[in-house]
């Protein structure tokens, strides 16, 4: 697929996505797209370190939860504006990323060991957020109460400065913009010197080191970047649901969701996390619908399918859906020429 075709495809797709609220007003569809884009951002955060850098984190909930908690607590305790506290959330989470990265990379943890230490940190923060009730409100979680007065609107993103349309679809466009920022940032990273060095670390860390790349610094950059992107998803979550608690923030579900999307969509590709998220959520919704008619509403069905998809993709599509699309395109294109 030539670069120009790819770019045109991308832009068409994004324009379509941005215009959807004009045509589809069904709340269910908007929710579906919002969640899909949310998971795409979460996945893109994982993709930076896991897909491009080859460092598989099993505890990205650490970054999601930290971002979400900082965002919630700054508003809850100090009444900061959400637009203001989000910068602290990003910076604070990047700092947590730097701490975890410094410790694990300084001591040379790779592969299984890196996966384990990220899991351990996520679990440590899980326990802390549950126990340090003086700071985090403990297991009850932080509930942000909506303030109706727009001048004192401390607890939600307010879109009153915009027209009625933006007020209604504010969150759709918030997550759309977050996704756009995250994806552009990764697209730029892929083309940068830093991106090339990161891929070199993934392919062969010792060789990269031998070529004069400071692999420690590259990995540190990647984990901080990954942490801030994931924190953006956390900030969004807090603002959307106005509630966060230890299980949601630091539980294993978010860590797993974060790695699902890029693996299914295509590791180390810009579009991978979005493709994967669309595919998984689409399949999830359809099965829930179908099974719901037959067996009633029982939990677990969509997740069983997610697990099966993950294993199948790993077995048969090592480059994910993005790789499949690329191959199909090539086959059709060649077929036409021959």
């Amino acid at each position: 697929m030539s670069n120009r075709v790819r770019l045109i495809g991308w832009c068409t797709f994004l324009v379509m996505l941005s215009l959807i609220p004009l045509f589809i007003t069904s709340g269910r569809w908007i929710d579906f797209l919002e969640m899909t884009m949310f998971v795409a951002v979460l996945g893109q955060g994982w993709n930076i370190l896991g897909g491009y850098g080859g460092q598989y984190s099993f505890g990205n909930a650490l970054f999601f939860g930290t971002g979400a908690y900082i965002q919630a607590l700054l508003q809850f305790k100090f009444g900061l504006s959400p637009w203001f506290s989000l910068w602290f959330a990003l910076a604070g989470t990047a700092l947590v990323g730097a701490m975890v990265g410094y410790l694990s990379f300084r001591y040379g943890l790779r592969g299984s060991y890196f996966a384990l230490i990220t899991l351990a940190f996520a679990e440590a923060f899980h326990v802390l957020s549950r126990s340090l009730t003086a700071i985090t409100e403990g297991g009850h979680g932080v509930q942000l109460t909506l303030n109706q007065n727009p001048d004192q609107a401390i607890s939600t993103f307010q879109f009153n400065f915009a027209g009625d349309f933006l007020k209604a679809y504010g969150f759709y466009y918030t997550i759309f913009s977050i996704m756009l920022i995250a994806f552009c940032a990764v697209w730029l990273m892929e083309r940068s010197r830093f991106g090339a060095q990161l891929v070199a670390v993934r392919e062969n860390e010792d060789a990269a080191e031998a070529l004069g790349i400071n692999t420690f610094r590259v990995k540190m950059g990647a984990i901080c970047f990954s942490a801030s992107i994931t924190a953006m998803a956390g900030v969004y979550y807090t603002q959307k649901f106005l509630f966060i608690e230890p299980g949601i923030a630091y539980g294993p579900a978010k860590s797993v969701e974060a790695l699902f999307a890029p693996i299914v969509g295509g590791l180390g590709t810009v579009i991978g996390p979005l493709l994967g998220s669309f595919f998984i959520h689409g399949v999830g919704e359809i099965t829930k619908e179908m099974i719901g008619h037959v067996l009633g509403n029982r939990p677990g069905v969509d997740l069983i399918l997610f697990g099966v998809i993950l294993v199948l993709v790993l077995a048969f599509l090592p480059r994910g859906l993005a790789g499949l699309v690329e191959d199909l395109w090539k086959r059709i294109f060649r077929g036409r020429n021959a």
Partner: protein
Amino acid sequence: MTIDFLGISLQSYSWQTVLGSSISGVFLGSIYALVALGLTLIYGVLHIINFAHGSLLMLAMYAVFFLWNILGLDPYLSMLIVVPGGYLFGYTLQRTIIGKASHGKDEITLLVMLGVSIVMENTALFFFTATDRSVRVPYDLDGFDLGVTYVVYPEIAALLGSLLITLVLWFFMSYTDTGKAIRAVSKERQGARLVGINVEHIFAVSFGIGTACVAAAAALLVPTYAVHPQIGYLFVLIAFTVVVLGGMGSFVGALAGGLIIGVTEQLGRLYLGESLGLITISVIFIIVLLFRPTGLFGSKSS
């Protein structure tokens, strides 16, 4: 004496209380060791952390529960069924799914195991629902009064069971041909292949034995723990800690690590409270990973 900090109160306890907590920690630790034994064996050979270990434990616990519930089989007797069953299940799982899907790459194996565990956990959730199910045996509250604490027979059975399984595994690895082949594969895959060992078969055998261990652990756990689909997650994080602390691949290490973690957890709960006490496990985990990733009994080369 009491110190208050951020809502946590630290206070000192009498030696009887501390000793009582430590003893119950030893029994708790033997349960952790049991779960960790299978994990450390699989790690020693495949050099992969088995993320599906907790789910395998959970499935085995359900098997024991239903054998008791439907056939009225005593949990300890059901070991005769679930241990061979676990071996077959593990062998088949590795041979047909995990080995095939991972293309021989370690990182992919990690993810395949995660996928498999998600499938197992949610299948259990779907069919068995999230309800707690517990096995009642007539002797589950009988036991000894040690003065400082009370110990029930199922706890003693778990402690003896973990010692016995460690011993059996150690003998098996040291003196049988299969055990020697497993050790050969874990030391040098290519070399083992060259001398005619069927490496894929040995991988699956180790996975089978690891699963059989976890099935035995399940039978010993069921009298004291209720079964639900997420029970595996509770144990697997601790089992990872135990394995890393003891040294990946070391059986004695798993036993020692289990006991250390059990005692630390109980003391942590005593001093820091039920909730924050669990932080001791994560802290040990992180410290060991950073400063001594080979663990207490691990070989230096790995």
